[in-house]
């Protein structure tokens, strides 16, 4: 496969990985208030994503893959709400370990990387176009 086509494939693997990352972020934000339903039950646990590089035999290059989607082992904080069904004997409810500020930062970073990959595709396309332009005139 020629290098310019490979460039586009590699960059698209980056696009895909970053979009999965944004999906995880939105899952975390959407569930920032998902509490348990039984007394003392655990609420939603923040999800994390780790990328890894995978060798693609067809392209002869390293593309990005998802190593694992894990959970953040951080502690839950407690909020006092005795009337809630998930409240324990003392009246405390466990709250998800999602920090909206952290999620927003993560999302911005993912968007930035996504844009960079998109930029690479655009440039590769520009190069392919100038090669095709050699046929003109």
């Amino acid at each position, binding site marked *: 496969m*020629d*290098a*310019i086509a*490979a*460039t*586009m494939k*590699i*960059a698209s*693997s*980056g696009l895909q*990985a*970053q979009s999965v*990352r944004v999906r995880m972020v939105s899952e975390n934000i959407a569930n920032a208030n998902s509490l348990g339903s039984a007394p003392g039950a655990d609420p939603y646990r923040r999800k994390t994503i*780790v*990328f*890894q*590089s995978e060798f693609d035999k067809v392209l002869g*290059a*390293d*593309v*990005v893959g998802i190593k694992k989607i894990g959970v953040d082992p951080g502690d839950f904080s407690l909020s006092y709400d005795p009337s809630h069904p998930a409240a324990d004997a003392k009246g405390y409810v466990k709250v998800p370990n999602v920090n909206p500020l952290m999620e927003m930062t993560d999302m911005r*970073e*993912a968007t*930035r*990387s996504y844009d*960079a*990959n998109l*930029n*690479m595709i655009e*440039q*590769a396309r*520009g*190069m392919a176009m*100038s*090669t095709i*332009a*050699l046929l003109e*005139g």
Partner: protein
Amino acid sequence: MIDGISLFQTVSQKMEYIGVRQSLIAQNVAHADTPGYEAKDLKPFSEALKTVRPAGMLATHGRHMVANLGNTDFREDTHHEGWEVAPSGNQVTLEEEMIDAADNQREYELAAQLMKKHVTMLKATLSTRT
């Protein structure tokens, strides 16, 4: 066939080099958030050029075989040092890669234009044969 003319050969090698470099830059950008990833780059083209035109053997007999010396394996620059290393061990700096990519694209444009100009010159030569 037009490879026989040395400028065409050099320019097409250059375009190939830029293509390979572009795919490495894309690889770096795609791995901007992969822990432990080391940024890659090629050695400069001037160095690749040395391996492109090695002293070849002449075919002075019909049964001599001339090795295809077109070198497409441009050497990776193993001493490439990026701007910074992230705490996760990732060596990619997006800004650096964007600059490299823009540079690369400019050079590609130059090579393509050179190629085009040269074709025009050839055409001009041919069109004098009336």
